[in-house]
């Protein structure tokens, strides 16, 4: 654990009644961008809430910039939080809302509007500055929440599923802003259950599964692990058995299964080769593909693999 860690968890556990959300996690998170990866229910949100001082650890300790964040107003000023279920005052405009946030954090009255507009423009929301929040789309509201978290330029940014509901162009901008803050020496912790989302922002990841920290390290190594374990590719098409026949000579394909009348599952250890071959073979055999999915390319499978539950 780094001695200069911006965020530090020591034997941290959090439970609700008999349900354990986070179990005995000890880790130090340095400045820069770090991904907090885990499937739904892994304990990511509980962790972020304790870090932002909204909840107390049931056991152990959380330290943000060396201080306990629980109801610590002085520290709260330096923590920016964007939650997936955060609250926005619908009757205000984004500029007013961010201005209110900035005033609470101690920014001078006369400077709040300029700073709020600047933050909104950083997220390409110049057009929405003076529109009421209740007239904005879900994706735009999410970006307003992000602009609000970023506006004060806090030392620590805790972002819970920040890309939820955002269109691809805005995603690129958001990822860019997150990386900028990381490069500027801020500590940015981004939670997600989508590996490639986090990969686009950072290489440093924490993997949380069923409340336990199962891995802490480089995202590329984790990606390699995902590619090595047995993989299934589900293809929904009009003639699944014919597609299987067309793919049978591929060395990367280890077997087939037919979970339904319209789906064939290819079993492979080289998913990239398979993904490339499926459209070509289907075209040759004049088979119409309706959907191509990978049930194993999910974090849930990766975690099962990491904790030894996967076959």
């Amino acid at each position, binding site marked *: 654990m780094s001695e200069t860690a911006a965020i530090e968890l020591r034997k941290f556990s959090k439970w609700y009644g008999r349900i354990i959300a986070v179990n005995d996690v000890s880790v130090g998170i340095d400045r820069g961008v770090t991904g907090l990866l885990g499937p739904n229910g892994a304990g990511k949100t509980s962790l972020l809430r304790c870090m932002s001082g909204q909840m*107390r650890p049931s056991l152990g300790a959380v330290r943000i910039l060396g201080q306990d964040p629980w*109801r610590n107003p002085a520290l709260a000023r330096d923590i920016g939080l964007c939650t997936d279920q955060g*609250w926005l005052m619908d009757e205000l405009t984004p500029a007013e809302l961010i201005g209110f946030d900035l005033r609470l954090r101690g920014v001078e009255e006369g400077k709040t509007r300029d700073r709020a507009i600047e933050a909104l423009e950083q997220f*390409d929301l110049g057009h929405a500055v003076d529109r009421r929040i209740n007239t904005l789309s879900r994706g735009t509201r999410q970006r307003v929440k992000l602009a609000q978290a970023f506006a004060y*330029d806090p030392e620590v940014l805790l972002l819970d599923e920040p890309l939820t509901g955002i269109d691809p162009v805005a995603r690129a901008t958001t990822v860019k802003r997150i990386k900028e803050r990381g490069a500027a020496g801020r500590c940015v912790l981004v939670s997600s259950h989508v590996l490639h989302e986090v990969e686009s922002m950072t290489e440093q990841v924490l993997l949380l599964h069923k409340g336990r920290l199962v891995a802490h390290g480089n995202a590329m190594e984790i990606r390699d692990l995902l590619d090595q374990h047995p993989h299934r590719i589900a293809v929904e098409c009009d003639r699944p058995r014919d597609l299987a026949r067309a793919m049978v000579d591929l060395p990367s394909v280890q077997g087939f299964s037919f979970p339904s009348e319209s789906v064939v599952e290819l079993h492979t250890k080289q998913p990239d080769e398979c993904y490339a071959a499926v459209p070509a073979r289907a075209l040759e055999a004049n088979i119409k593909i309706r959907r191509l999915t990978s049930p194993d390319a999910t974090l849930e499978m990766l975690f099962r693999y990491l904790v030894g539950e996967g076959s």
Partner: protein
Amino acid sequence: MPISDRGYQPYEGPRLPSRRNNWVITSLELRRIWASLLVKIVLIIAGIWAILRVAWVAGVGYFNVTLTERASQDAAAVEQLRQRLAQALSSDLVLAGIDGQLVFVILLTLAWGSGAIATDVRDRALQFYFAKPVTERTYLLGKITPLAVYCFFICVVPGTLIALVEGSLLQGQGLAASRSALVLPAILYSLVLSVLLSVGSVGISSLSRNRLLTLAYWAGILFVPLAVAGIVDLATQGEFVWLYLASPLTMARLLGRAIFRLSAEGPLQWYHSLLTLAAVCGGSIWLAWQRLSKTEVVG
């Protein structure tokens, strides 16, 4: 449209202390309360009602003063009429002017105060506030103060105006100063009512995230003891007057009479009311404090 990416902009301005956050939340809440259509309607009707009441006092008073001066050549009769006028234009009228606004203050606390914290809990707004440099005290003051300000103005405007009107009407009788001085008790009584009702309603609003439930609690606290005491009082012909001790509204009016130096209408005295009023204010603040300081913000 050309896109100019200004990139990362660090904040380098001054960072003010968080103690001014009371005012930051209060100013926003004043705006939010005014933005509510229901509140606007209540405030406008309260304003019209206050103007009508003051105008009625001024009109009727002026008519009577003029009539008295022209009424008779008999000095004794004129003096008698003047005394009656002085009795009519007294602190009772100022008190009645404020009490007449009580219905609007109650409506305001039911419409806004009784849901203040409940709505924030329901909307997960506490996540927003307590992830900022906001303490429980700052938050509570920020919720109570704006409501108290509106309640205070609803009460104080007719109260002070009626006192001033009385002062100007009785100028000829040398009572201008004494009647104008009723402005002070009018302000004090308005303050008591606004603090009691805003603190009580906001505190009670912390009891549940269900806004209807907290509204029912607050309405219950205001009206159930009053109704029970009233019915029992009527049935027993005043044998259980002490039941009124449980009614914050009756106790506030009892204190109001004492503030205006009017004698109590029954055996209960002004100091009896202090216990009830302290219990309502202190109890609701304590409840809200407990809920806010111990409850974790779970979404």
